[in-house]
């Protein structure tokens, strides 16, 4: 049996899409994730600037979570689920991340198609690196793949070299 990385549903070997949540269970060939030089992802790049106390008025009403793309200032609201995969949609591929970062030049930034996941539960908000090629950093600290790391409002989540700031109205 194989396990769906998103919902932990068990499927037979060879299954291509999770019957429970529709997550793609294998990675196909496409443009491989770009290698970015180490320099880009080492800490101390000056991206760790915490926002003020303001709690993201840019969030859509009803949203308690969001991501601000640091380079453009765009705010992506996360609504309606308890977990969101972050990645890069490739038109010819059926890997569909919940949050598609390709409008933010994700490919050049070294974002994998399924790069990381944000998970919400009663313990708070967590980020998990989905064994991405260029790694996920929280405030400059590189995450171990597949390990839940708690994040708070204002934290910088770096996918490859793409920086996202977490906006959270979530109270534990």
């Amino acid at each position, binding site marked *: 049996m194989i396990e769906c990385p998103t919902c932990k549903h068990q499927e*037979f*070997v060879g299954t291509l899409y999770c019957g429970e949540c529709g997550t793609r269970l294998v990675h*196909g060939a496409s443009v491989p994730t770009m290698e970015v030089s180490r320099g880009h992802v080492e800490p101390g790049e000056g991206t760790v600037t915490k926002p003020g106390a303001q709690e993201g008025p840019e969030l859509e009403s009803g949203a308690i979570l969001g991501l601000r793309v640091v380079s453009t200032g765009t705010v992506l609201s996360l609504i309606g*689920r308890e977990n969101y995969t972050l990645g890069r949609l490739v038109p010819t591929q059926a890997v569909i991340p919940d949050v598609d970062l390709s409008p933010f030049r994700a490919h050049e930034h070294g974002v994998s198609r399924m790069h990381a996941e944000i998970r919400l539960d009663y313990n708070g908000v967590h980020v998990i690196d989905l064994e991405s090629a260029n790694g996920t950093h929280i405030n400059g600290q590189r995450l171990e793949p597949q390990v839940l790391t708690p994040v708070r409002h204002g934290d910088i989540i770096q996918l490859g070299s793409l920086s996202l700031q977490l906006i959270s109205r979530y109270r534990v």
Partner: protein
Amino acid sequence: MAGEQDYYKLLGVPRDATQEQIRRAYREAALRLHPDRNVRPGETELFVGVNRAYEVLNDPARRGEYDKELRAAEAETAEKSGFRCSVLHSRKALLQLDEPQVHYLLFDVTPAPGFKVIRPPVNLCIVVDRSTSMRGQRLDQVRSAAQAVLDQLDASDHAAIIAFSDRAEVVVAPDQAKDRSVSRARLSLLQAGGGTAIAQGLETGLTQLRQSFQRDGVNHLLLLTDGRTYGDEAACLEMADRSVTDGITISGIGIGSDWNDRFLDDLTSRTGGAAIFLDTPRAVTALLQKTFDDLGRVFANRVRLEGAFAPQVDVRSAFRLHPDPTPLSDALPLVLGHLGRDDSIRLLLELVIHAIGPIHELPLASLKVAGDLLGQAPDNPPLAIEIRCPVTGEPEHEPPPPEILATLNLVSLYRMQEKARHEAELGQASLAARRLENLATHLLASGERELAKAALGEAERLVHTRHLSTEGEKRLKYGTRALLLPSKSGAP
């Protein structure tokens, strides 16, 4: 060569078996079938056959000769068949595994080249629901759409229009169909009123089709309804099964939100047809026109996939992707309906394969594509397809073919919708709502804003009322199916 048995099959060994494998298989078969210990009828002949097979295959020179003949004979049979078929596997090799594994097959059936192009005579019967709810725009549209089709009939075509409510009557008989003033006058008599007894309409329609049956043409019944039939579903399905044997296909158009989509799907798909959902009656004209045009382009009817799967292989699901995306029953023979002349039939099978031991190759299935070619010389054997797949001990990391991935992605969206509906019916409203939200996310990611909105709307409704709307159910079901249409998925 023709008519003779395949020696390899007789011994139960693969074509590339080693001499040792052949010897072992022979010894086993000979022991089992030897006349001294076996007197069951037919087995002596089998014993003789096995001996002959061994005699040939055990001698490398004679085996080489035989292989050549066998391939030539097979190629010749395949050449004569009116069909071509390609099969794509989701994996290059199966795994030696003591638990079940999933394998997908994508079939493309196309007409063989070199056949003369003809337009088959069309024998069409349109069966119209004239229950009270059809009053007004719905019936007006159907009337003008039907008239438009009647106006285009060829000399060799036949058409009839049946209306039903609690009973059925012939509105336009075949001999009136080609006379414009008569058919117009007859159609104007078509007025709404009464209930929806589909069995009545079907029976009268099928009777008309049988009376003007075209042996060398397409015989098709198109059912238009906007309501539910009560109590006569079983009778309808029985009629549908009988019509398959006669070579009559049934397709359905459901207008609005109150018809029974599951019933119409079942009724039509078992004949090789499909049900289509229209949220507005305005589209009836275009749809009727398309149906009529497609019938004039049919190359073969009663197309079906026959044969058998290996004992350790189960078909978990079968889905016709083109034309008219529809889930099919998972039992052979699969009824596939019409094959158009410049068209294909695309089919996705999901197989569950049970434990595989240390072998090099697994024969998955021995299948045949059969069907009746319209207006062609009668000598057209079905196309035999042997499906086998290598087995390895090491998992390989080659990605599945993109066509299979793209298709499966869309099929999985359809399945999510089905599952949510099932959960809603079981009273698991919050589970269903979450699933629809998830579906909406996937749909948005594929750029399907309207459909995503519909899914979110239904999810919200589930939270408030614990039920899906009858319209939303259909919109999601047929909407996710429509994602598989070539314009969207890039399939041929």
